[in-house]
């Protein structure tokens, strides 16, 4: 590309910097996690040589398999709730004037500036025995005595949805913005009911956004140990709690890494599905008769 080399050689500098940084802090560390997951834990040196698959077998022990299952379930519910709120929300936002849309999107980002841990703590205050929610319910006479909201799976889901909802909304808005509105009009003119228009036009055309949103919500939700720590009870552990515990408390790095490798594999699997769906939409998307 570059036909003239300058004395400082800017081009080489940029490429070297890029490759060094990403190699050193992304590629190498990911490979090292995989390596660590098959090493033997050691109290003194953290890890020692003999390669073993015991760490992976340990993941399937009932206690840990239980946490894994619980995490999947909590993440699944969180993703579903985010989608159910985020989809109509993104749809309404996408239909607004550009100025209004920018303002509302900006308002979604503002809470990020008070660290998410502090906001989760605020949710704990809201859901507490004397918090706003209980006071409101008692004031309106729905309940007579405070209900237990905090330290439950319900509270954890509220917290997870709170943190992750913006990440569901953003790709969905992008998806709606790309949507060719005339397709819906065509559906209308041809006499399709709103339900049919939703199932056969809107849903398939926004599928990439839906999958992208679910992807960005589902996996991170399993790692949010602080949400489970602050809002959850003793039993609502997430995968993140186990990994954090293994790395920072028990110091069994190989076992913690083995758990993470499962997450990485799950991510790889979901990305493949995402790619397939994206290709499918692009090849079959919207414009051929079958979809209309």
């Amino acid at each position: 590309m570059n036909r003239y080399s300058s004395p400082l050689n800017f081009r080489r500098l940029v490429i070297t910097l890029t490759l060094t940084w990403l190699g050193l802090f992304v590629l190498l560390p990911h490979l090292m996690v995989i390596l660590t997951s098959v090493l033997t834990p050691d109290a003194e040196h953290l890890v020692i040589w003999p390669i073993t698959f015991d760490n992976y077998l340990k993941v399937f022990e009932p206690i840990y398999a239980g946490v894994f299952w619980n995490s999947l379930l909590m993440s699944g519910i969180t993703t579903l709730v985010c989608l159910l709120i985020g989809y109509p929300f993104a749809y309404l936002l996408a239909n607004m004037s550009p100025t209004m849309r920018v303002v509302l999107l900006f308002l979604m980002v503002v809470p990020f500036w008070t660290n998410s841990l502090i906001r989760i703590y605020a949710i704990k205050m809201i859901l507490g025995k004397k918090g706003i929610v209980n006071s409101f319910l008692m004031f309106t006479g729905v309940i007579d005595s405070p209900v237990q909201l905090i330290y439950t799976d319900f509270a954890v889901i509220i917290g997870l949805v709170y943190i992750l909802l913006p990440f569901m909304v953003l790709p969905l808005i992008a998806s709606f913005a790309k949507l060719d509105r005339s397709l819906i009009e065509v559906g209308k003119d041809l006499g399709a009911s709103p339900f049919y228009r939703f199932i056969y036009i809107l849903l398939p055309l926004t599928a990439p956004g839906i999958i992208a949103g679910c992807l960005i919500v589902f996996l991170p939700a399993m790692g949010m140990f602080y949400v489970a720590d602050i809002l959850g009870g003793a039993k609502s552990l997430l995968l993140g709690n186990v990994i954090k515990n293994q790395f920072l408390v028990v110091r069994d790095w190989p076992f913690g890494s083995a758990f993470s490798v499962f997450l990485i594999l799950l991510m790889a699997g979901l990305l493949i599905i995402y790619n397939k769906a994206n290709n499918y939409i692009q090849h079959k998307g919207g414009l051929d008769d079958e979809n209309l």
Partner: protein
Amino acid sequence: MKIFKPLFILSVFVYLYLPMLVLITNSFNQSKYGHKWAGFSWKWYEKLWNNTGLMDAFVNSLTIAVLTAFIATLLGTLMALAIHRYKFRLKSTTSSMLFILMMSPDIVLAITFLIIFIALGIQLGFWSLLIAHITFCLPFVVITVYAQLKGFDNNILEAAQDLGASEGKIFRVIILPMILPAVLSGWLLSFTLSLDDVIISSFVTGPGFEILPIRVFSMVKVGVSPEVNALATILLVISLSAIAVISLLIKRKQ
């Protein structure tokens, strides 16, 4: 049906803002427990000022966020340039690594950073936090800047090249001014992500350098003091001022 739409949007925002509202209100609340309004008071702000541990963590958090924003923006812009403009070996690997970086859940990134810092002998603290924050912000800067580079008239660059301008000069004099809005958005995005992070920071922090989420997390078990409410409010005011300045800059540029 007409009333339903605004009502729905409103309730989503109530959900998003209720915790912030509780923080801000309680930062001015005379009462320590924040269940009841006991009158207006500045006392938590005064107490915060004298709480050195919390103030240090607050200053450290802002320092990391600002430095991260500058360095990640610089690096990310150069990376976007490399991917857009240059052909080199491992280019597709570069894009995949950025993609992995963006899609990996925080908890996975957190342990990859911890492992590499220990392996390289980088002490956990200021530097480990800074490097980790810069790295996880990079892909967001790259996609923002890359999107703007794509809509670029390459003829101008070729003309500059034919007139003998060096690559460095082309970047400084032509490319940078034209992509400045994207660069500023990248800065803001990095600042936001760095300030918001909890998970990665928890893994790569060290005893010598404490940042806000770590400090607050250690308080949760014994009860968070109301100074934190005051702190959260100040954080919000600072960030809103930052965005005001940046959006003015972007507007002037456009």
